[in-house]
């Protein structure tokens, strides 16, 4: 399952990887130290593989190929390597990888970095450690098994002799690369950092303003661009007058970027760019443009009528995606039948740092500095935009000021590259918040219909559910109207309840905006619908919601949905390695209930809500306590989240992810809604697209990590989000007796 460790020659090390790094390019092309921290790698004397170099002074350089958007992953993967290397973390420096196929996928998406690269990092570190130990044993002329590595040194136990890694680097470089099968990984009891964690490598820089993001990229001769784009997706330029724009002091010129044609993919949208000396002049110039647009086919998009259509579609029979037993038969025999329709709106990502990129076109090549989750997609997208080969695009990855999926879609980098090619200078693009919110790849809107039959004891015996949403596929293939396997496997076909008659369906919806993935993707709406509906059933049955939930989950078993669903994607992983284990789901549910004091929380105005959901192979349960204040507004004094993500590699950063998901989920539940009129997005900034603030966010989020060292490590960036909005809504029901079935709560005047 892991990527094999590839031997790389010293030449390859220096020229292949590091000459493309900041310092060397800085000498040749641009003073790049202003953009990324200069990395002094010229003296790296030894590199056992593409991930690591050791200098003669003992400093260790580790290549980090994941984008840092707040999860700590840029630190955590090198930390794993350093652990196996027995390196002293204080002597480790990181080098951010440029986009290159040699790292495997660099796309930091889908909460997959640890599970995809845990073994690779360990093997890389262990390989280097073995070569250092071999070199020392040879130098001392003693048997290998008398030598061991410890804290940046190799030690000969009998004689007490020691050699530091720096002293050994040159000799280690001459050792043959040990075969993977001979590599000895550490025992968990020997871990220095794994399971204990280290702070983010960038912590100090983030507290002192030195951290460099895409928005901060700078070259001395760069120009700033502000682009006026068609307000409706697919709109085209009719006419424009730039005379006044050009009269603004500091404006140099205007440039037309051709309008994108469907399918839009990651293409630059097109528009008119105002090129200026600085950000302010560019934005003032843009305001003075007079532009007429041809709106195109998406001008029919009105979210209120679209919503009505989605709901109507959800209420009619649709394509079956999972089927067990006979739902109609089950409903006939039921003592009680419940029906409900849920709705969720479009959402914008709104990362704190809007999209930004700096690109320079020179001699048929592009070099870009940008906040991207996926430098390889930058290479492909930019290459296509300016007509060159992907390998002729060098993409430097800065820190990302949040991303949540937005920054794996590099349309903004293509804009900078296209403009640089046209104006012959480095071009900086920095989107405003309004551009960010109006030209997003939106999290999809959905309608979900549910119908269930309960037997006389209240147990669900039949369950029908239909979802309808414009799928992500529509962005890449204009005709796509149904959810794909991935979307269907995010909380829809994988409903875990033990119901003998079960049917899941999915209906078609046409997109009028670019649809994209947002933190936890289709799980957001599917978990909202399913986890609220089971709560409805519990109340209809007159049972405690957690007890009812656990009873409905049924006996401990491994789910594969075979014979019921065509394909369960399981986040691209085999079920034998990453099973859907209901015992683990039960466990997190029980822990969340117990640690939150579920059983004795309820008072007249204070109430608790529960939800549990598996996503990105992790099991997460949330108990949310709400409090309706004297003004009738919802407050969230406390959230308890229980997590089973297998072994926990960097515990404090994992906790931080779930604390953050608690707030992100609160924004989804209370505030998030994008609407459109005549195809134009109505919102533009935090005044009309609010996100949770300090006084609105949960006061306390308690994260309970269940150590599960027998399992494989799974995702942590996204799985905290799905249970939050249903748990909040279920708590609001407990507090008010009112069942709301639409996100967000703001529309109910409860916020």
């Amino acid at each position, binding site marked *: 399952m892991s990527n094999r460790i590839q031997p790389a020659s010293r030449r390859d090390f220096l020229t292949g990887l590091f000459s493309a790094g900041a310092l060397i390019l800085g000498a040749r092309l641009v003073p790049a130290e*202003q953009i990324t921290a200069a990395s002094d790698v010229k003296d790296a004397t030894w590199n056992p593989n593409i991930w690591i170099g050791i200098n003669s002074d003992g400093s260790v350089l580790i290549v980090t190929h994941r984008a*840092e958007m*707040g999860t700590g992953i840029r630190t955590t993967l090198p930390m794993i390597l350093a652990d196996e290397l027995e390196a002293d973390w204080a002597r480790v420096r990181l080098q951010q990888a440029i986009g290159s196929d040699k790292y495997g996928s660099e796309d930091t998406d889908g909460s997959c970095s640890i599970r995809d690269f845990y073994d690779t990092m360990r093997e890389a570190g262990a390989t280097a450690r073995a070569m250092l130990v071999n070199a020392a044993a040879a130098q001392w002329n003693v048997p290998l098994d008398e030598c061991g590595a410890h804290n940046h040194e190799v030690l000969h136990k009998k004689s007490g002799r020691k050699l530091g890694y720096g002293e050994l680097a040159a000799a280690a470089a001459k050792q043959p690369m040990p075969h993977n099968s001979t590599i000895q990984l550490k025992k968990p009891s020997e871990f220095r950092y794994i399971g204990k964690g280290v*702070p*983010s490598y*960038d*912590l*100090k*820089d*983030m*507290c*002192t*303003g*030195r*951290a*460099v*993001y895409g*928005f*901060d990229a*700078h070259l001395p001769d760069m120009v*700033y661009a502000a682009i006026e784009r068609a307000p409706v997706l697919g709109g085209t330029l009719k006419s424009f007058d730039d005379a006044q724009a050009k009269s603004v*002091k*500091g404006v140099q010129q205007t440039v037309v970027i051709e309008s994108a044609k469907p399918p839009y993919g990651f293409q630059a949208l097109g528009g008119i760019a105002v090129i200026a000396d*600085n*950000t*302010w002049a560019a934005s*003032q110039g843009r305001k003075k443009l007079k532009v007429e647009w041809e709106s195109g086919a998406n001008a029919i998009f009105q979210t209120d009528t679209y919503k009505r259509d989605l709901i109507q579609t959800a209420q009619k029979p649709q394509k079956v995606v999972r089927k067990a037993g006979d739902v109609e038969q089950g409903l006939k025999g039921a003592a009680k039948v419940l029906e409900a329709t849920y709705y969720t709106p479009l959402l914008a990502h709104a*990362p*704190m*740092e*809007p999209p930004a990129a700096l690109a320079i076109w020179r001699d048929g090549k592009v070099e870009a500095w940008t906040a991207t989750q996926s430098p390889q997609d930058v290479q492909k997208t930019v290459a296509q935009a300016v007509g060159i080969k992907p390998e002729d695009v060098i993409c430097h990855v800065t*820190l*990302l*000021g*949040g991303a*949540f999926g937005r920054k794996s879609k590099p349309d903004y980098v293509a804009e900078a590259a296209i403009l640089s090619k046209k104006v012959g200078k480095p071009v900086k693009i*920095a989107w*405003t*918040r309004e551009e960010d919110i109006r030209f997003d790849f939106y999290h999809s809107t959905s309608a979900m219909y549910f119908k269930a039959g309960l037997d006389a004891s209240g147990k669900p015996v039949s369950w029908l559910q239909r979802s309808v949403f414009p799928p992500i596929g529509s962005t890449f293939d204009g005709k796509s109207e149904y959810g794909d396997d991935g979307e269907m496997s995010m909380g829809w076909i994988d409903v875990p309840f033990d119901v003998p008659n079960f049917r899941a369906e999915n209906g078609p919806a046409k997109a009028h905006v670019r649809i994209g993935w947002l933190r936890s993707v289709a799980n957001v709406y599917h978990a909202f619908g399913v986890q609220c509906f089971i709560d409805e059933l519990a109340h209809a049955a007159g049972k405690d919601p957690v007890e009812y939930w656990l009873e409905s989950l049924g006996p401990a078993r491994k789910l594969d949905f075979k014979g019921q669903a065509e394909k369960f994607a399981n986040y691209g992983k085999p079920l034998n390695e990453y099973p859907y284990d209901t015992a683990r789901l039960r466990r997190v549910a029980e822990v969340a209930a117990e640690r939150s004091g579920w059983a004795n929380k309820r008072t007249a105005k204070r109430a608790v809500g529960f939800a549990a959901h598996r996503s990105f192979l992790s099991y997460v349960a949330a108990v949310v306590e709400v409090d309706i204040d004297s003004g009738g507004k919802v407050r969230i004094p406390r959230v308890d989240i229980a997590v089973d993500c297998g072994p926990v590699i960097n515990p*404090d950063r994992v906790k*931080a*992810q779930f*604390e*953050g*998901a608690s*707030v*992100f989920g609160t924004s989804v539940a209370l505030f998030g809604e994008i609407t459109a009129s005549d195809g134009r997005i109505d919102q533009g*900034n*935090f*005044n009309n697209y609010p*996100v*949770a*603030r*300090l*006084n*609105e*966010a*949960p*006061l*306390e989020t308690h994260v309970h990590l269940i150590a599960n060292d027998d399992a494989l490590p799974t995702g942590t960036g996204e799985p905290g989000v799905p249970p939050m909005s249903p748990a909040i809504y279920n708590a609001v029901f407990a507090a008010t007796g009112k069942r709301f079935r639409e996100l967000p709560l703001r529309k109910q005047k409860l916020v």
Partner: protein
Amino acid sequence: MIQLKVNGAAKQYEGDGEMPLLWFIRDHLQLTGSKFGCGMGLCGACTVHVNGEAVRSCLTPMSAVGGKEVTTIEGLSAHGDHPVQKAWEHVQVPQCGYCQSGQIMQAAALLKQKPKPTDRDIEAAMSGNICRCGTYQRIREAVKIASGQKRTVTA
């Protein structure tokens, strides 16, 4: 011509007086620690001190800062060791870090005004600063530690 001090150094600006201070700091001085998040005074990412008070530099025109002393995150302390910065590190507040310059400048201004802020004071002072990563709980805790009202991290 507008004359002002930024982090103790005399600076001059000739140009559109309407231009927000944020762009002078970022584009002209290349002090990029102060961030853009909304341009409308809604998020606090651009917070700096003007004559010791926290202001949103995205809404402060250059014409309003003539003769004033501006402090940005880069000038808050010589070695990144302001009590607020130390507490931020100790609690490991930042996730992506993008909002944190503004959060730290806001918190530092609060502590200057109210050395021992209550929970309500913290809420009132810090709710204008958005953190999309959701680090609010640790921000509350770090402000308590920076103000000496709490020593260690609670589990």
